[in-house]
């Protein structure tokens, strides 16, 4: 059995100038696992996701990712870690470009080509048609469409880990189903590990292998 993708031990995290908002004594996330995170607002779900996406550092404890200890030296090249673990945050925005340019942007950052067919496939995964949406500018999208474009922009990268913070907020039932299919296909096609935060417990349970509940920055339960 292969080692977990993430191993957290005695991890505490806090925002600058604040007391610790996250305490994780121990957490392993297996490769290819779909892990759900539930809990009330302010319970530490998004903070845990940012920690896993290397957008914030642990104050204490150790975090091992893909077999390597994430220490200060590793974080100096944080973009290399973030290219493997890609986050779709709650506050994620689109760039002031067309839909196709937004979806291709992450590949461009990696110096990879972004053929039209690949962009179309990523958009199809979230239920958007390239012919209809590809050239559309960012400001002519509804909130739900923008959210799905942002998800497509991450799916196209085939990351080791995909971290999704409330990916179905503002989406109708059909779009929510598209997101579920996209999540499952990311694992089936590329063996991606997914960590998903959602308030929609029914939807989360239908996607995830297990769901952890957080309360006041601590994991208090799991299904």
């Amino acid at each position, binding site marked *: 059995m292969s080692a977990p993708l993430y191993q957290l031990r005695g991890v505490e995290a806090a925002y600058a100038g604040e007391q610790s908002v996250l305490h994780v004594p121990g957490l392993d996330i297996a490769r290819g696992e779909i892990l759900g995170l539930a809990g009330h607002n302010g319970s530490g779900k998004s903070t845990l996701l940012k920690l896993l*996406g290397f*957008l914030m550092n642990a104050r204490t404890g150790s975090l091992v990712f893909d077999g390597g200890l994430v220490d200060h030296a590793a974080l100096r090249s*944080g*973009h290399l870690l*973030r*290219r493997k673990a*890609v*986050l*779709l*945050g709650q*506050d*994620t*925005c*689109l*760039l*002031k470009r067309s839909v196709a340019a937004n979806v291709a*942007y*992450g590949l461009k*950052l*990696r110096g990879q080509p972004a053929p039209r067919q690949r962009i179309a496939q990523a958009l199809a995964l979230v239920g958007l048609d390239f012919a209809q949406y590809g050239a559309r500018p*960012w*400001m002519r999208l509804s909130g739900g469409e923008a959210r799905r474009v942002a998800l497509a*922009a*991450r799916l196209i*990268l085939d990351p080791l880990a995909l971290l999704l913070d409330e990916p179905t907020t503002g989406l109708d039932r059909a779009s929510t189903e598209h997101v579920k299919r996209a999540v499952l296909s990311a694992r089936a096609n590329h063996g991606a590990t997914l960590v998903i935060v959602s308030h929609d417990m029914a939807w989360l349970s239908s996607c995830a292998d297990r769901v952890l509940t957080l309360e006041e920055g601590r994991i208090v339960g799991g299904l």
Partner: protein
Amino acid sequence: MDYFSEGFARAVELLLSLDPETFSAVWATAAVTAMALAASLAIGLPLGFALGHFRFPGRRVARLFVDWMLSLPTVVIGLIVYALFTTRGPLGEWGLLFTVQGMGIGLTLLGLPIIIAMTATAVESTDVRLTETVLSLGADRMQLLFATLSEARFAMALAAASAFGRIVSEVGIAMMVGGNIKWHTRTITTAIALETGKGEFATGIALGIVLMLVALVVNLLVALLRRRAGA
């Protein structure tokens, strides 16, 4: 009303006949505006970006200074530049007083704070969500800088258009530093002031028409950019 209609008719005649004196002022205005705008952009865009993007000690003081520069009356800027360039001034030996280059420097001081302040605001307002978005997609620090610049492009173009509007219509600095010398440093605005004082309304109106057309184009551009920047 004849007074106006005759003035307007003569103005159209001057413009259609490409009157050399009228167009001398138009070309002087174009030259000095292009010079001042280019310098304001070259210096102001990087400074505005740094002020909006980076957190450094003294940043708030720097911001206050730029805002203070924005509110300086143009005659005061003209006075300072005049004092620097006059033969008895510290830069008098450069011989820039009553030259197009001297006017360009004076007008750069007018445009520069506009570019810095608006660019800084544009960069600040895009930073909050953009930084996390771009970093989460795997950008390194340089890529983040370029992405931020690229996202602020409409707002920065708006800053350029605003500075252009202010520079092209300025009269105080142009008059004091340029000296309103015919065929040389006489711009549209200083010519209007002079011709009106002499009772030559036709020339004044002709030049006013040119300035109003420029203002109309700039305002249309600003409205378009504001819509795109705010979208």
